[in-house]
């Protein structure tokens, strides 16, 4: 034992005698995680969150969340002597008069955009692989919560500098609040402490942005990760991987090194973006004044779909009992997002009801093997993308020589026509891929090598798959339709009635798959040629 090892041992022993941590640490450092790039998407979100905390803390040192009117005297001359809020003036101060301030602001904003993008791709991975199934429904709900809060948190951050763009965003948020029937105007007065814009909104959202929501984020992320830890990570199917084990590498040293390294890479990419690409140049926007607006005012991308929905809504209004109900804001701004997010949150429970599957799942699905879910995902994604396109309709119009009206009409119809089309096409693609898998297992890989047999016949040589590959392609179980029980043996009508019928119909659609090859079929073919 060298002197160094002895010292390290003494220190470790000292700590262990007082905390008893050795056993716990030993167990957890050896915890095994499966290895796949798609399991690192959530990590990107986590690391971006840490970057957001760090850079955000830096910004709070100088940001003044106040609507007090000041005259700008800083070093950005085009705004010299312009009247503005202290919030905007301090953001200019951070940008131009604090060392590294602009870089930090840009890192903070880029990190926010990456954070939201990473959450979305992480969610898509979890959805398409069925990682939300029992026992992980709670974690799915936590994830939806984090996504929703992320949108709100991002929007508040976008609103804080009180520049022309952020004020425009707040104005639209106010309009959406006011669109709530009956209580809307009261809520708006409550939030703004009077008429828009008032003087209290910026200080209020500052508290929410830097204290309340980050606190909730930390708590939810902790629980989110603890559940991953406790329930163990899911893994892709493969030889040796079962519902009862996890195949991968231990946390120490492999993932410690990988995760640590990946954190610095994410930080590096974010800092690079912050250093070379301008984001939200608030000095060009100028201070917010309710009478002003810029052409091409947009929200950040994660709210672009919402903006797109509002932009395409036809002008519908109802006037009743002295109240105006603005359907054109209410439907795209509140009702559709409400339906989408509720549906997304409930999806694990809906799917489990349709399939009648109440078992635990730790092996992931290959998306093609669950065509209906995959098609539904593609459908939702199409809906979002069509909405997002309309959110940028003015920029698309000027840069691609189109007219706003064309884009709006395209997306109006596209919103209704394209998602179902995406569903059908995706489902067909999934079934075709299943068929391809079946071919592959039965006949092997096409080598492209043509051979002429002695009697003149040409055949293509097929190379049989390895046993591991065959296992991977055929290990999944295929869903069976739930039979509709209308009456029991005694002739008593099923009390679930219409619900049972719906379940039977959905599960029948869900059971529409290409039968995977049976072991007998494989054996039979292996006997004969190709």
């Amino acid at each position, binding site marked *: 034992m060298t002197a160094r090892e002895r010292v390290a041992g003494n220190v470790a022993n000292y700590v262990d005698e007082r905390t008893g941590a050795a056993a716990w640490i030993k167990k957890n450092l050896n915890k095994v995680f499966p*290895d796949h*790039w*798609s*399991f*690192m*998407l959530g*990590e*990107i979100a986590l690391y971006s969150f840490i970057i957001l905390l760090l850079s955000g803390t830096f910004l709070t040192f100088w940001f003044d969340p106040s609507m007090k009117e000041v005259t700008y005297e800083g070093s950005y*001359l*085009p705004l*010299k*002597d*312009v009247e503005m809020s202290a919030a905007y003036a301090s953001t200019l101060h951070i*940008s*131009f008069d604090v060392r590294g301030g*602009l870089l930090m602001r*840009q890192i903070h904003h*880029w990190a926010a*955009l*990456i954070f939201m*993008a*990473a959450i979305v*791709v992480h969610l898509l991975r979890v959805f398409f692989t069925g990682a939300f199934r029992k026992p992980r429904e709670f974690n799915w709900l936590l994830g939806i919560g984090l996504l929703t809060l992320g949108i709100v948190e991002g929007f508040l951050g976008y609103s804080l500098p009180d520049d*022309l*763009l952020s004020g425009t965003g707040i104005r639209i948020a106010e309009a959406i609040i006011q669109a709530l029937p009956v209580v809307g105007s009261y809520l708006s007065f409550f939030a703004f402490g009077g008429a828009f814009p008032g003087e209290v909104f910026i200080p209020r959202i500052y508290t929410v942005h830097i204290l309340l929501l980050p606190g909730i984020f930390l708590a939810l992320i902790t629980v989110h990760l603890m559940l991953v830890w406790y329930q163990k990570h899911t893994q892709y199917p493969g030889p040796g991987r079962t519902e009862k084990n996890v195949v991968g590498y231990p946390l120490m040293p*492999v993932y410690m090194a*990988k995760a640590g390294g*990946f954190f610095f*890479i994410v930080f590096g*990419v*974010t800092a690079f*973006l912050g250093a070379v*690409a*301008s*984001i*939200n*140049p608030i*000095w*060009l926007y100028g201070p917010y004044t309710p*009478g*002003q*607006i*810029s*052409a*091409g005012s*947009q929200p*950040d*991308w994660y709210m*672009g779909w919402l903006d797109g929905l509002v932009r395409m809504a036809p002008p519908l209004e109802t006037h009743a009992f002295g109240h105006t109900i603005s359907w054109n804001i209410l439907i795209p701004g509140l009702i559709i997002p409400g339906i989408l997010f509720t549906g997304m949150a409930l999806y694990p429970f809906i799917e489990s009801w349709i399939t009648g599957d109440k078992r635990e799942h730790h092996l992931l699905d290959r998306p093609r093997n669950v065509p209906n879910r995959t098609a539904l995902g593609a459908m939702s994604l199409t809906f979002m993308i069509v909405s997002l396109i309309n959110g*940028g*309709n*003015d*920029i698309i*119009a*000027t840069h691609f020589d*189109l*007219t*706003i*009206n*064309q884009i709006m009409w395209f997306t109006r119809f596209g919103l209704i026509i394209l998602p179902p089309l995406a569903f059908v096409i995706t489902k067909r693609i999934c079934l075709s891929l299943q068929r391809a898998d079946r071919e592959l297992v039965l006949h092997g890989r096409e080598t492209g090598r043509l051979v002429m047999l002695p009697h003149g016949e040409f055949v293509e040589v097929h190379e049989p798959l390895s046993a591991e590959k065959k296992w991977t392609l055929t290990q999944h179980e295929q869903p069976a339709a739930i039979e509709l029980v209308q009456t029991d043996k005694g002739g008593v009508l099923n009390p679930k009635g219409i619900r049972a019928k719906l379940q039977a119909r959905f599960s029948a659609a869900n059971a529409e798959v290409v039968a995977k090859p049976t072991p007998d079929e494989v054996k039979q073919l292996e006997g004969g040629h190709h």
Partner: protein
Amino acid sequence: MKKLSSLRKHKFALPVLILVALSSLGFTFSAATAAPAKSQLAASAKSTLIAEGKELFLKGCSSCHGLNAEGGSIAPSLIGVGAASVDFQVGTGRMPMADMSQQAMRKKPLYTEEQTAALAAYVASLAPGPASLTNEEIEWERDGNTAEGGELFRNNCAMCHNFAGQGGALTQGKYAPTIMGVEPKHIYEAMITGPQSMPVFSDKTITVEEKLSIIKWIKAAEAEPNLGGASLGRVGPVTEGLLVWTFGLGLLIGIAVWLASKAR
């Protein structure tokens, strides 16, 4: 008569007559040389310019705007639009139009400066209208105030031309063009003539000095380096979102794939 004939024979008659004749000749000469050198000669030069302009107009413009600039079913009347309008439309290459699209776009001017001036003179001769200007006449650097111009710009221009003057979309394929790299006189002329979808900003709504301030702000925005790095077009969050999904997340996912594959 007797008196007159007797005067004729007066000894001073000849010198006086010579004096009168000479001085009248001198005055006439000076009037005929000095005055015509300025007004009359200019008038004749102007009429040549107008004639030249008319000729150009008949060749290049009349098929749409009519033989007397009275307009037609596809083009507006030019009577009373003034030289400023012509200088803007022709000087920025918008007129003549390349095709019958929603809006004439800025392109390389088809006419030389002299030809443009001739066309302007011809149109101005039809009826009074705002006069054209030269860049030198617009003292934006001396009389403008950048910060004030910025406020005026955001109040009056940004809703169509975007916060940084990059342009924006209007309805049915019309658009507010970018105003980066536009000559000061053309910016000024656009404000006083209101080309295409743009409203007229008369000197009562925006004073001459305020117009110069706006120009000064536009020129400042044009000259301003991109302080935060690549500008991404100064069009707001759309291009930022595009970059984050392509470069940002694309790169990070690529790295994740690389990290995961190394371990195998």
